[in-house]
């Protein structure tokens, strides 16, 4: 299954990845190769097989509802490019 340019552009937009016009054909071909593997999987009959949510055949362990974390704000804020008054700063985004 080939992937057309438009689909690649849309995927790039959704994933917030910049793909230059020079590389778009190459990306499209490589994605197509991945999808060929998917085509092989699609060809296998899965009738009667329940969809798998996780490769491990295990059940999730839950934790008790307790506060175990302490305030490490100052450490975390230092990792951010910009912060002020205890807030992480980002370019303005408004709906």
């Amino acid at each position, binding site marked *: 299954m080939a992937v057309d340019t438009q689909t690649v552009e849309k995927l790039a937009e959704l994933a917030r990845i910049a793909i230059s016009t020079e590389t778009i054909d190459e990306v499209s071909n490589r994605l197509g190769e991945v999808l060929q593997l998917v085509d092989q999987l699609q060809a296998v009959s899965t009738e009667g097989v329940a969809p798998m949510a996780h490769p491990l055949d295990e059940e999730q362990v839950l934790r008790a509802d307790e506060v175990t974390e302490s305030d*490490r704000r100052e450490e975390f804020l230092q990792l951010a490019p910009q912060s002020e008054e205890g807030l992480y700063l980002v370019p303005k985004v408004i709906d």
Partner: protein
Amino acid sequence: MEWEIVIGLEVHVQLSTKSKLFSGASTQFGAAPNTQACAIDLAMPGTLPVPNAEAFRSAVMFGLAMNAEIGKRSVFERKNYFYPDLPKGYQTTQLAEPIVGPGEIEIHLEDGSSKTVRLHHAHLEEDAGKSLHEAVFESGHGMSGIDLNRAGTPLIEIVSEPDMRSAAEAVAYLKKIHSIVTYLGISDGDMSQGSMRCDANVSVRLKGEEKLGTRTELKNINSFRFVERAIKVEAERQIDILEDGGSIVQETRLYDADKNETRSMRSKEVANDYRYFPCPDLLPVVLSDDYVEQLRNELPELPDAKAARLRDEYKLSAYDADLLTQERATADYFETVAKACGEAKLAANWMTGELAALLNREELSIGQSPVSAEQLAGLILRIKDNTISSKIAKQVFEAMANGEGDADTVIEKRGLKQVSDTGAIEQMVDDVIAASAAQVDNYRNADEAKRPKMMGYFVGQIMKASKGQANPQMINKILKEKLDALL
């Protein structure tokens, strides 16, 4: 043309767990920004989520209260989108295998009718953080501030079928959800603090048409009143467009309460492709039959059952019973008053009348009432034993509301005790008759049929003389005897 409005609601309820859905960070409201956002909430590399057992317990309790199927196996998925208040780039939520499956609840409308609304499903998910756009910074750099304290707080999203046909039905449904989650104690349900948020899917169609019209989604309507207004104004907008021959665009719209209008949120349209897939960091959660049955046994008495019991045990009307059971605290208050004074009907009347008016005026919840249940019961006891009349009781109630103490203290201090002393009342009757020669003549000359009505003047004068404290039954009896003796 007659139009029908079709409404489905998505209600987000914040669960009142101590810690977050996938981390041990505190969920306490009102903390300084980012002091309750840990490495997991911030999506630091190498961290792994571990689900909170209490969030599952809350969700299952909710499902049981909604007569719904319980997803004994549920799976978390990733809903992918980019927004600054979502550090991971996806929200961990449930889609194909949610914790609560189809169910139904009965809603009660103001005209006394009831209706069943079907639940599509309810799922567990994490909340996002908050973006602060307003001028929170002194330096005018024009950037947005992000507070991630709320990120990872557990929510249940409750999705109804499109079963509601008016804004009033939508409000009744929302109130029912509110009362169920607060009865269960799984959320404080406070809409003003965002503990309960509502999105409404609204469409219109010609009456009799089976096919649903194109819907719009109204985002984040944060009070019962706004839900009603937003739905009404959006339905009107759609009807206007259709009647002018236009068509509805499926989109997300925001309700502007100040302008009472809805407007398009264009930015949300582009990225409406969430590419859900099962979260590889989390295994399926499997709950045993025993666990679910144990929770079923722990369910408290729910609003409908409580209303039925109040009708039965206290002989309340359906209307009063519904009104008094909307909130658990109100129902508890009522039962305390009714048991302490033995006058259920009077207790209900005072609560839906004077007390409701007082709380409304002061914008207080029943828990903050300045008049306690014990105080109200004390007041009703004094009406019951004729110490005071109902009219004087209102004065005493106001005094109790102002913190002047319990009913007996107020009655004593203000000297409001009803006068039931025959001698004293006879004296007042004599005085009024003596001072009202003209009215007495009229009374004497009137038809017998008209006389009872004419007594009103005398009763009024005597009441005035006694400052409202004379026992009305005794005045009537003594006055009639004295007037008739003059015939």
